[in-house]
């Protein structure tokens, strides 16, 4: 039996989630020039909140999802306003380190609140999987795919068709000009952070059933998001989507044909190769260095 179509479909389903996570990351980076190294842990924390609501309070999945989105949004806003804004004058290295600090706090808080052992996370929807020819797709994966695509579409619609979205793009492309036109760049940054982290939370909820939920576990997921963003081009939102999908497929192909044990290692190798051969990724712009 040819497993290729199966691998492709599963890969796309997984890839859509990587894409969603990467989308949040790149959105934040483009609007504020900061790489959020706490992106994975923010998603993890939001997912834990959902977990508690589902397991301890019996909440339905959609309600937990909404809660996770809200928590993710708030975490993003907190990061921007509570941590980065006061540290505005620090160097870029310092700001990156600050995001690391938040990651550490979130991990330990989660560990303290809910323990370090991996917990099984329920799927979004149960029931018989769909079968199309040789391909089997669980309902959860299908829903994940749909949700991811919808979120990406919603984001692009926001950016393209609303005044706010245009302002976000404007700030990302030329912050100075936006300031001079009266755009409240601080509020736009805050919103970008909120939306970016919320997207990560959504992705987290759908990924969790596959990786088990544990405080230190989302680093792997974040790494995949980074790989997707690097592959697509860190400065490109469509690139994040393309990168995520390609990564999902690549990941699955490796797992199916080679080995499941060393996927992380191969992802790392992929990142290295892309960064060396074509640092701007598939859809990003080449980076210039300007000399003072």
């Amino acid at each position, binding site marked *: 039996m040819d497993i290729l179509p199966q691998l492709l479909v599963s890969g796309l389903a997984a890839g859509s989630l990587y894409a969603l996570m990467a989308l949040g990351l790149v959105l934040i980076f483009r609007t504020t020039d900061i790489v959020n190294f706490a992106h994975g842990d923010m998603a993890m924390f939001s997912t834990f909140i959902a977990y508690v609501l589902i397991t301890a309070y019996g909440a339905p999945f959609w309600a937990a999802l909404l809660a996770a989105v809200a928590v993710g949004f708030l975490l993003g806003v907190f990061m921007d306003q509570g941590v980065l804004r006061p540290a505005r004058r620090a160097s870029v290295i310092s700001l990156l380190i600050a995001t690391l600090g938040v990651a*550490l706090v979130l991990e330990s808080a989660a560990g303290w609140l809910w323990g370090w052992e991996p917990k099984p996370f329920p799927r979004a929807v149960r029931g018989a999987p769909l079968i199309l020819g040789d391909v089997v797709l669980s309902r959860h994966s299908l829903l994940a795919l749909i949700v991811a695509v919808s979120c990406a579409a919603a984001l692009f619609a926001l950016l393209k068709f609303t005044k706010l979205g245009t302002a976000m793009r404007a700030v990302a492309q030329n912050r100075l000009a936006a300031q001079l036109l009266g755009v409240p760049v601080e509020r736009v940054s805050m919103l970008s952070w909120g939306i970016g982290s919320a997207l990560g939370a959504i992705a987290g909820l759908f990924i969790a059933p596959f990786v088990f939920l544990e405080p230190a576990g989302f680093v792997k997921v974040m790494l995949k998001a980074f790989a997707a963003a690097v592959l697509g081009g860190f400065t490109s939102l469509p690139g994040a989507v393309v990168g995520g999908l390609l990564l999902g497929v690549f990941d699955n192909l490796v797992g199916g044909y080679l080995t499941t044990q060393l996927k992380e290692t191969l992802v790392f190798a992929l990142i290295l190769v892309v960064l060396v051969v074509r640092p701007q990724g598939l859809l990003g712009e080449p980076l210039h260095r300007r000399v003072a």
Partner: protein
Amino acid sequence: MDRKRWFLWLLLLGALLLAAPLARGYTLYTWALAGVYVVAAIGLNLLTGYAGQISLGHAGLLAIGAYGSALLVTRLDWPLVLSIPAAGLLTGLVGLVLLIPALRLTALYFAIATLGFGAAVAQLLPNWSSLTGGHQGLRVPKLALLTGSDAERYALLAVAAMLMIALAYNLVRSHLGRAWLAMRDHEPAAQALGIHPPKLKAYAFLVSAFFTGIAGGLYAHLVGYISPGDFHLGISITLFAMIAVGGLATIPGAVLGAVFLSLLPHWLSATRELSQVLYGAALVAVVVFLPYGIWGQLLVGYYRLRFSDERWAERGRALLARLQRAVRPLTARWVLRASSSAPADLAVGPRTRTQTQPQPPEPERSPRRGEGPLLEVEDLTVRFGGLKALDAVSFAVQEGEIVGLIGPNGAGKTTLFNVISRFCPPTSGRIALGGEDLLKLRAHQLIERGVVRTFQNVGLFPYLSVLDNLLVGEHRRFRSGLLSVGLGLPRTRREERALRAQAERRLAEFGLLMLKDAYVWALPYGTKKLIELLRALLAEPRLLLLDEPVAGMSQEERERIAQLIRRARDEGGVTVLLVEHDMSFVMGLCDRVVALSFGKVIAEGRPEEVAAHPAVVEAYLGEEVPLGARA
């Protein structure tokens, strides 16, 4: 390390050792563990604090060191005293090999690559069970000398940590340490002084990985048991917290941060979670409130007190007045330019002209013309996308001339300088330096050919002292390699002392000796520009490229700088190409002027001619429009 430092650290070691019999086993264990963190933190600090490269994969390096030593001991029966250093070397090499492709990446992408590295190692460890024992981990013998007691282990750790600190100091107080800081703070200026970033970054990574590998080995044999779970991302971030809290780019800072943060949880009897929360919160707090870290903040405060602005602004003006007299003796050194640059030859007193080697017949030092141009730019074109920044630019600079490059904003002057400095590749054209093709040189090779430049925004390194800045200017004269520097060999120390003494003498000639330890960021703008010019002159250039040498200076300062440049040419035979917006300055100083507009040369000739040239007037003032056209 200088004597005072040696003494203080040895004193500390003595105190630590004496305390051993007095404490309980568990306390000794936690302090020993702090020692491990000290070594690891210094390792990270060398890469991140000094060389400015962020690594998020240091836990992976720790793992390689720990498992490396563990395997050498359990599989090959090596003694600990060999296995741990060997593990360090192994880690250094493995890390370097894996990350060589990543060395040319910018900070962000390098960080991502190291993130991947750490994750890859974290995944390999449990999966390669034949080698690593998988999730169950490995049991290894603990450090022991005679008794194998906790006190003994603690003492061994203290000594090991001290040795590593000494090694770190040797590296940091050398020309390599200065080069790292230079590269971190102003890479183009560092390149212009002969520093080759990929090589320096490789060294930094090698050394950092070595330190971390040693720390890993020490960790393994302190605890006696290692497993994959010990080496997760949180550890990498914890190390960051330590060096950030203590102070980036300072050794005492790394030590302080490591000890403080590893002991804090024990003092608070905190759980693992709470301690991690503390680390994370500490990291954030430090970035927001104490960007220099505890030790760093203390240093900054000290330097502010000692070298506060107002004092130097006054002195600066007085010092400038002494320039004239000081320049004369300097010319004696320019004669030495013809010979090689071995340090021993330069140990000459300020006003003597005794040489230790035969003098070539003293060449005519008045401006030499007609010997073939020193710099020849031919048909140089630079395209950025669709825009032509330079369009078939051609001109020549004769030896001994002072040529000014003028033009309105956006005319291409800075682009031209950047092409000559090899920061920017041209689309087409030729540049020749004394007949040699300049374009086949890399940026860091220019200074060997005698091309030295200054930068528009002052190419000094703010967190180095004035003396250190001058010494970076002499980087190419240091011959010691990584190993000699690390081990603190006598040859290295002699070289450092000789060049340092020479730089001090030159500062003294300019009457600036009291500034030698001043951190550059603390100095007023005019003084900084002056020191940058000094550093350039001290490199004994054939061709001096000055990018806006008098921007932001007072009229009096401008005149002094003009006189200095003229003297450099008259008595030192230096050829000068400068970019300036101050027209009086250019007109008064330059022999010839080249005017650019929209990337093209629009006029060339004597200053008065160029100033009156219609194309130049138009470029600056706009088109001549008949009067009466105004509504």
